């Protein structure tokens, strides 16, 4: 028996969300008295034995260039083969963009129950019950998996990796690889920015900022703190900011350590995507703005007066 963790990579580098999945899977192996093994697909430049620090004992690596880009159908077959070879009874992956493409098909292929978007380690005291977010962050559900093999996709930034000393054994894994049917022809990444889904700190702006020309202060604060930027739907709909920054019930759903909202009213649909953030800060000139009810810290004030002072104070703190 083992816990098999699928490690997702892009351009040869392991994603942060996959380190979280590795550590979660290792903890789960400890909890169930088995070992944690990882599966890496495609060519990687990272040192795979370093996954041992996250508690992984063995890394199976399929270094085939056809697996550098995602074709869900193909990845599912390879993961299923590796799961059979390592006699995995639990499979863990991140519920990141690729995890969302792979986990459901893997569940259907193996006829094994999936909890998509877990936020905590399973309760294994009586069966196998996993907690996940439902109703767009407004509630949680504890889901029982009834099949012999269990599949869990872990919400990014919901589990803090525990680092140790280990070194993982890395072994090539030979899988049947068919030609991918989905062919990636282009990848466009916004350079030099932290992806919103992986960010620990997020600075976000709403319609209260009046227009796209006023985003300088959001971007400056984000840059100073190493934070990602986000916005409300109203802002994305007005094309002040790109769609991928839109968070909320019908946009991205995030759970950073800090969500810093400037000039956002905090409509229920907006809160749905951000209310799992560990600390929420709200800057709004309206004391009645609903966002204050969901906030940990706040300033009732004009963003145009408050933000420059905040930026100055952060600069001083960072010695800039």
């Amino acid at each position, binding site marked *: 028996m083992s816990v098999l963790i699928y490690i997702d990579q*892009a351009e040869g580098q392991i994603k942060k969300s996959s380190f979280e999945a590795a550590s979660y899977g290792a903890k789960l192996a400890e909890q169930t008295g088995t070992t944690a093994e990882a599966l890496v697909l495609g060519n990687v430049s990272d040192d795979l034995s370093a996954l041992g620090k996250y508690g992984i004992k063995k890394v199976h690596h399929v270094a085939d260039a056809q697996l550098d880009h995602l074709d*869900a*159908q193909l990845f599912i077959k390879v993961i299923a083969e590796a799961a059979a070879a390592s006699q995995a009874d639990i499979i863990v992956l991140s519920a990141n*963009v690729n995890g*969302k*493409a792979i986990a*459901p*098909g*893997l*569940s*259907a*292929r193996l006829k094994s*129950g*999936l*909890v*998509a978007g877990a936020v905590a380690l399973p309760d294994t005291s009586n069966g196998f019950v996993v907690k*996940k*977010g*439902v*109703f767009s962050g407004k*509630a*949680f*559900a504890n889901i*029982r998996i*009834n099949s012999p093999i269990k599949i869990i996709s872990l919400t990014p930034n919901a589990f803090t990796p525990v680092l140790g000393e280990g070194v993982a054994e890395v072994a090539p894994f030979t899988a049947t690889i068919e030609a991918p*049917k*989905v*062919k*990636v*022809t*282009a*990848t*466009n*990444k916004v350079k030099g920015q*932290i992806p919103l*889904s*992986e960010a620990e*700190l997020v600075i976000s702006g709403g319609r209260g900022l009046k227009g796209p020309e006023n985003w300088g202060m959001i971007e400056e604060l984000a840059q100073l*703190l190493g934070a990602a930027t986000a916005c409300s739907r109203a802002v994305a709909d007005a094309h002040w900011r790109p769609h*991928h920054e839109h968070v909320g*019930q*019908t946009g991205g*759903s995030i759970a950073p350590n800090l969500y810093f909202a400037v000039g956002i009213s905090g409509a229920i*649909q907006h809160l*749905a995507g951000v*209310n799992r953030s560990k*600390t929420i*800060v709200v800057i709004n000139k309206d004391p009645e703005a609903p966002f204050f009810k969901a*906030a*940990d*810290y*706040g*300033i*009732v*004030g004009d963003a145009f007066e*408050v933000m420059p002072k*905040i930026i100055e*104070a*952060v600069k001083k*703190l960072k010695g800039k």
Partner: protein
Amino acid sequence: MKILVCISKTPDTTAKIAFADNNTKFAADGVQWIINPYDEWYALVRAIELKEKDPSTIIHLINVGGADADPIIRKALALGGDEAIRVNTDSTDSFTIASQIANVAREGGYELIFTGKETIDYNGSSIGGMVAELLDMPFVSLATKFELAGNMATITREIEGGEEVAEVNIPVVVSCQKGMAEQRIPNMKGIMGARTKPLKVVEPAAVEALTSIERFELPPAKAGVKLVSPDNPEELVRLLHEEAKLF
């Protein structure tokens, strides 16, 4: 060409989230139901746009649910689509729902199957991927653009910090999100027409659920906001640094 669009019924985005029967069921009393926004705004509207470009296209809608889903199915038909199929069973297990959809799709010979990127109630993001695997079709998730030329689909999908463009031959299953299309409001002609469009009810196949909901819980209430004077925003930075230790 035949397109199948998967339609889910979800509580309105402003619905109060509460639970009944010892926290084992969603308290549905007084709740307004809507078409899951991702299914309606992106999957369905993009399918309608493809039909507008090629009028020979046939669009079928599918819902897995009880008779209480009929009003939202009619609303979807008012936006567009030629007929709807409802598989008459209630389930919260994604695999059960996906299996019912796959059974219908297998008979229907669809070249495109569209779903929303997730439902706003169970947030599983699972149905599309499961249906694709059950039908042995390729799956492209979180699509923000979809173009079709002959048999070749060019699909843009979200990745961390950007997007990826991929090509795939149809048939394909696609989960849709913002960017695919713009929300539409049904017009009078659509609403009148929807009344006479076929809504077929089929009985479910026997499928064993792989998961079950044990219990719901609400997040713990927030302790309350700590307000800092607008005259002293530096204090906020100090608190975030020293108390919350965020940076």
